[in-house]
């Protein structure tokens, strides 16, 4: 009897096809992560992509412009197909790829070269019971645990009430040694977002801000089992708002970054103390501030009271052009492991900025 498992060309070539898909997606990542449906839809919502490089090129007729013969029952099932009505001809070819949020997040993670999942924590890591071996019901036969399998067999037979002279092993009895793959929970995390709402945000800036925040949160959720959020809006004074208001608000007045940092400091020493919380702060700024004095005030608040309490503080300057604001320049002096600075003028800047929020230095 022939062994047909030898013929695996189809699987191999499909793997090559998938690799090409992934490559194509990686190339378009900056625009894909900004897609509305991926952010606002349910986790299962799919982004349908047309990837031109994965359509087999050829000389062919334009199907939209070409008449074709079909059985009436097929024609009747076409959308709008009844005599002459508005409708579309069926999709040309199956070259669409459907991508779900988690898959995109996977590719994003790979692309940012973040390495294996490891939480960031400067405090004591709150590991649970950790062991090199675990016992699982499935695994490679090379890791078969004889003793545990026999034990399982005895238990099973005892449960069924059937006495047996010798423990007999069935497939279900087999137990295997495995490595524990996932890190233990390291406590909770909070993401505090800060934004200056004096003056309204243009559509592009709003889009960039929302997109960045969405993916930063998604990435952090891979590291921590529980992530909560807080939103601080400010002009000359600061207050806490909900997520929707955070992105929508636009008021008039001047800007005092220090007001927001003061409120942030209070959250970090009150509700979100270091002992129990891993804190991340993302400050979206366009670089404007009240003046040099407030710049200094903000810098010292940041350096003395905020940075010691957080895992990471990311200052994101959302602004056209390439010139950095005085505030940015000031912060450069204290940038390091805990304070990272990013400049976002358009979609292409999002990926490098996202990398900063979860990047982990090798110790």
């Amino acid at each position: 009897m022939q062994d047909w498992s030898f013929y695996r060309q189809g699987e191999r070539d499909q793997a090559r096809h998938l690799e090409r898909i992934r490559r194509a997606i990686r190339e378009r990542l900056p625009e894909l992560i900004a897609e509305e449906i991926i952010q606002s839809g349910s986790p299962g919502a799919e982004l349908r992509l047309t990837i031109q490089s994965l359509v087999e090129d050829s000389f062919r007729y334009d199907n939209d412009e070409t008449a074709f013969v079909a059985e009436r029952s097929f024609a009747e099932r076409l959308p709008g197909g009844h005599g002459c009505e508005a409708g579309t001809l069926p999709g040309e070819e199956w070259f669409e790829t459907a991508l779900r949020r988690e898959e995109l997040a996977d590719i994003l993670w790979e692309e940012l070269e973040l390495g294996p999942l490891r939480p960031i924590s400067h405090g004591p890591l709150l590991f649970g019971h950790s062991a090199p071996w675990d016992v699982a019901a499935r695994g490679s036969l090379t890791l078969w645990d004889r003793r545990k399998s026999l034990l399982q067999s005895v238990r099973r037979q005892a449960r069924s009430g059937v006495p047996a002279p010798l423990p007999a092993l069935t497939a279900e009895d087999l137990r295997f040694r495995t490595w524990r793959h996932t890190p233990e929970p390291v406590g909770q995390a909070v993401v505090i977002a800060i934004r200056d709402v004096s003056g309204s945000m243009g559509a592009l800036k709003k889009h960039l801000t929302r997109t960045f925040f969405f993916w930063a949160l998604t990435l952090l959720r891979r590291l921590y089992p529980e992530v909560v959020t807080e939103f601080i809006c400010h002009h000359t004074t600061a207050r806490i708002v909900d997520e929707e208001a955070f992105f929508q608000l636009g008021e008039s007045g001047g800007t005092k970054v220090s007001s927001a940092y003061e409120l942030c400091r209070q959250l970090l020493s009150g509700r979100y103390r270091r002992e129990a919380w891993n804190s991340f702060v993302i400050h979206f700024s366009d670089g404007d501030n009240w003046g040099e004095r407030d710049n200094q005030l903000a810098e010292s608040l940041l350096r003395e009271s905020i940075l010691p309490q957080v895992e990471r503080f990311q200052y994101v300057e959302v602004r056209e052009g390439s010139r950095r604001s005085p505030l940015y320049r000031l912060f450069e002096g204290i940038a390091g492991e805990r304070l990272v600075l990013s400049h976002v003028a358009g979609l292409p800047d999002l990926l490098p900025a996202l990398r900063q929020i979860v990047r982990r230095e090798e110790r």
Partner: protein
Amino acid sequence: MQPDLAQRLDRLTKRAEAYGLRPYPVDVVFVPMALLHELSAYGVLGRFGHWARGKLYHRLKVQSDAGLLRLYEVAVQGNPTRAYLWQGNSLVENTLVLAHVLAHSDFFRQNAHCQRIPADTVERIRQHAERVRRYEESFGLAVVEETLDHILSVEWYVAEGRTGERQPEDLLGHLLDRAPLADWQQDLVAIVREESLAFWPLRRSKILNEGWASFWHATLLREELTSDAEYVDFARLHADILRPGVDRLNPYLLGFTLIRHIVHEHGLEEAFLVRESADDRSLVENHFDDRVVEELQLVVCRRGDDGLCWTGESAEVRRTLLRQLENAGQPVIRVAGEEDDGTLVLVHAYDGRPLHLLSAERTLGHLAALWNGPVSLETVVEGRTVRIVHDGRRVWRLDG
């Protein structure tokens, strides 16, 4: 093999021969479904790999898993004819399938166009795959894949004249003669060309071939089945194969209907002659009429000014179908020559149907990569003659 099946195959063969069929001996192999998908995607087992074939394989698998597609068999031409049957077929299914395959085998053997397929095609295809693998090892997967991407964009642009001269439709042949390719790239072009030439006769006679096989599985089975229960199974299966409305036009249904009409009107002898000398286009040209349109409820779908519409006007259906079948549905593109600056000049024989422009531009890009120089294509866009030129980096259009 189910014990009864060998005897049934024997009886079917004898009865088929009594009717006048001349199949090659049939070699039956039972396989898992994944293998049928692979055969459908690659045509032959052991063919060289490419991501596009993997994509097709995967699509077949997905449709099959979703219950949208059911493959029973794949027959590979040759002497003996290899019949791959799904391991899970019932006895009735296998009986029908074997009758179907016998007729396929007869078609491979007796049809004039198929007779031009070299007898050792399957073996040669395996040797090709071996050479492709060696190139992949020597030059790397990515490089070979890129070259194949270029070549496969004009996979079917091959031709063989009786005089031995290069035909203008033979794009791949022209590249072989004149393109500045490395030896191994030349070999890849030759491989693709040879395989396309071998598969062309089947490509141009899908309707005829499947119609022929369906007609005979119906005829032979009626005499073979032993019980009412078996008959019910057969009827269900037969109806399933001939089911309309799943894809635009079911070639099994159309072919079956045409052969039935021929037999009804002119007798079996005429049908045998058709099987010998026709292809899809000539089959439709000579035997497709109002009654077929009526019986199968065929319509022409087109995009009008106010959207999608369809009409069942008989003459138009016939006209449209004939056009669809010309050159197996492929735009006719010929090599016109080379310009002084080295540009390879191609001409599209425009017949009222415009090309898909983006695809054409990208294909020209592939050709330019192989040609290592500019390639131009004359075609008609929105009523005006244009020349599309691709130099390997950019593409642009010139008027007429």
